[in-house]
């Protein structure tokens, strides 16, 4: 794929790694915010190739991991209602709620469908006028425009049997919350490149200044990640804490203006509970009052939701970078990708699953 494959070139990767090694004189800990970046780092073995002192702390940038337990349970309750067609991105199907997930609900007879795009769910609604179609609108700022456009179209075209279950989360408040947490070891951030494609970079200088951390807008392919790390180390070594853009080919400073306008219209800021972390004020989006009639939370009375999470699950500490997955007593025992206790083990780039899949090898050798 053009403009993708070139950014995996092993020769250029080696050059970037050599540069990183050359400029690193002491240990640094940085956080990549985005789960897709975690996935890429571990899938290519990048963290094994960095200088030993550079630690990548995996951040809570996986909307699958951080979707609140209560929201998952609400989704399960709605999906279980007769006549409902519940549509979702594939990522969410195995995320455990209080004891069940969308797969188990499907096996009990619910109509749960995986779609690639929220527009597919809208089409399903148009094709099935006698059924209620609900789309599970999770994601960061990158995915919100797609969900916004879908509900905008639903209203414009008068598709009454469609609704959105919204659980969007925002990156800048998460960065602030991480820096405010006691025992925070993060000294710099690789900002999420595709979030910035949409939102631009205007919110980051204030964070960089307040917490005195370099913030480097970073992409997802190996060369992009390495360049993001390189720019970060250069800043750390020189004591600077600026915002720089290592992904300029798709991140203009203003982001995507039509998308941001749509987001202003369709969503409003709300407090959001991040699974495993807790409530972060003003860190989420919900549908604005203009679109409330399409809000699945309003449309479906599913009663009180009582959540029930395994006491063993320490996903929250992993998400904040306080512990590594293998430091959790349940890791690989009660909690595995096959039987996940928490969302970090489910998501393909949740830190625990990534560790389980890719890092097992080193851990086995260490333990042997």
């Amino acid at each position, binding site marked *: *794929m053009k403009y*993708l494959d070139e950014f*995996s070139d*092993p020769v250029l990767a*080696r050059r970037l790694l050599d540069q990183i090694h050359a400029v690193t004189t002491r240990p640094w800990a940085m956080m990549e915010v985005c789960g*897709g970046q975690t*996935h890429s780092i*571990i*899938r*290519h*073995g*990048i*963290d*094994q*190739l960095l200088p030993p002192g550079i630690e990548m702390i995996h951040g809570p940038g*996986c*909307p*699958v991991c951080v979707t609140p337990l209560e929201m998952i349970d609400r989704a399960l309750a709605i999906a279980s209602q007769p006549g409902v067609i519940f*549509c979702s*991105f*594939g*990522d969410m199907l*195995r995320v455990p709620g209080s004891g*069940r997930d969308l*797969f*188990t609900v*499907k*096996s*009990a007879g619910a109509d749960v*469908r*995986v*779609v*690639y795009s929220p527009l*597919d769910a809208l089409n*399903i609604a148009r094709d099935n006028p006698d059924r209620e179609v609900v789309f599970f609108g999770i*994601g960061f700022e990158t*995915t919100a425009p797609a969900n916004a456009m879908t509900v905008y179209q639903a209203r414009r075209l008068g598709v009454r049997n469609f609704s959105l279950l919204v659980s969007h989360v925002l990156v800048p408040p998460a960065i602030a919350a991480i820096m405010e947490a006691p025992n925070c070891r993060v000294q710099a951030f690789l900002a999420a490149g595709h979030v910035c494609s949409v939102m631009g970079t205007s919110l980051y200088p204030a964070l960089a200044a307040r917490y005195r951390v370099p913030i480097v807008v970073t992409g997802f392919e*190996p060369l992009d990640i390495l360049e993001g790390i390189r720019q970060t180390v250069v800043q750390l070594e020189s004591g600077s804490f600026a915002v720089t853009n290592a992904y300029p080919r798709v991140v203009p400073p203003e982001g995507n203006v039509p998308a941001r306008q749509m987001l202003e219209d369709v969503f409003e800021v709300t407090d959001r509970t991040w699974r495993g972390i807790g409530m972060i004020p003003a860190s989420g989006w919900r549908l604005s009052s203009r679109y409330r009639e399409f809000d699945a939370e309003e449309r479906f009375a599913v009663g009180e939701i009582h959540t029930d999470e395994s006491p063993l699950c320490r996903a929250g500490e992993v998400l904040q970078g306080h512990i590594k997955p*293998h430091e959790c007593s349940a*890791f*690989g*025992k*009660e909690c*595995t*990708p*096959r*039987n996940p206790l928490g969302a970090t083990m489910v*998501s*393909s*780039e949740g830190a625990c699953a990534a560790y*389980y*899949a*890719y890092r*097992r*090898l080193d*851990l*086995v*050798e*260490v*333990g042997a």
Partner: protein
Amino acid sequence: MTTVDFSSWTCPVPLRDTPNVLMGHGGGGAMSAELVEQIFLPAFGGSAADLADSAVVTAGGARLAFSTDSYVVKPMFFPGGSIGDLAVNGTVNDLAMSGATPLYLSSAFILQEGTDLAVVGRIAQAMGLAAAAASVRLVTGDTKVVDSASGDGVFVTTAGIGLVPPGVEIGPRRARPGDVVLVSGDIGVHGIAVLSCREGLSFGTSVLSDTAPLAGLVAGMLAAVGDSVHVLRDPTRGGVAASLNEIARASGVGVSLVERDLPVPAAVRDACSLLGLDPLQVANEGKLIAIVAPSAAPAVLDALRAHPLGAGAQVIGTCVAEHPGTVVAQTALGGNRVISLPIGEQLPRIC
């Protein structure tokens, strides 16, 4: 220092954290394996170590390979083939993976009431043509009809028998450290062809299913090097990742792959990038994995490449004594990643 021992891990949670069958149980990965190991094997007797694509049994002095498979693919017709092609080639290939010459197949149909008879006819035609191409005969069968509430279309189950030549002992337990791992051609093709026309995911692609009968390819390999072929496996559901994990576990060896050497066609790679899939987990229906003694590897590669179905054959890795039961790939950048047994169905992701 934190130590985590995976080799002795047993999950303390009982198999069914749900009491019901889930879609993932049909995915060919860890969930399917659990179903077999914890429900079927205890009931039927036998051990997990014996499980291979086909069973080799002795009857009346003849060594027979015996295999069965069910076909439930949706959509039933996809670029490059149909459920009919899969039903014949799939069982033919399972027999061939024991080194057998496939001979006779049965076919049992479960038809949904209301299915267009022309559709049934097309599937039957495809099966007849596939059988002729594979030099096997469909000699017995059955038909049942279920009411239209129970799923849609046509489900086919085929079973087959073949003769295993004397002296041929091919099975998942025979891999040894030092053995060379080869694949007969491009991987990920069938799964992408089917996904491309699945509702909610459809995308345009030139990828056609690779469904094909492999008995001739296997015969060519055995003629070239005989007993040096240790393991054969056709990587269907769960892809190359599932097959290599199963073999690594059965043989007690580690498998070390070189990612750069995996033959992934650009169209498959791009479709996987778009949907967030790993080509190693995508199904193949006309490819085989061969694990052979190192001295025989060049001759096996030549034998594969000499056959039209093996023109794209590549060496992709080796078996090692380290990390037994685990498959590890060296990435293009020079790092390592563990290739896990897929869990259930592979789903597209946004993250």
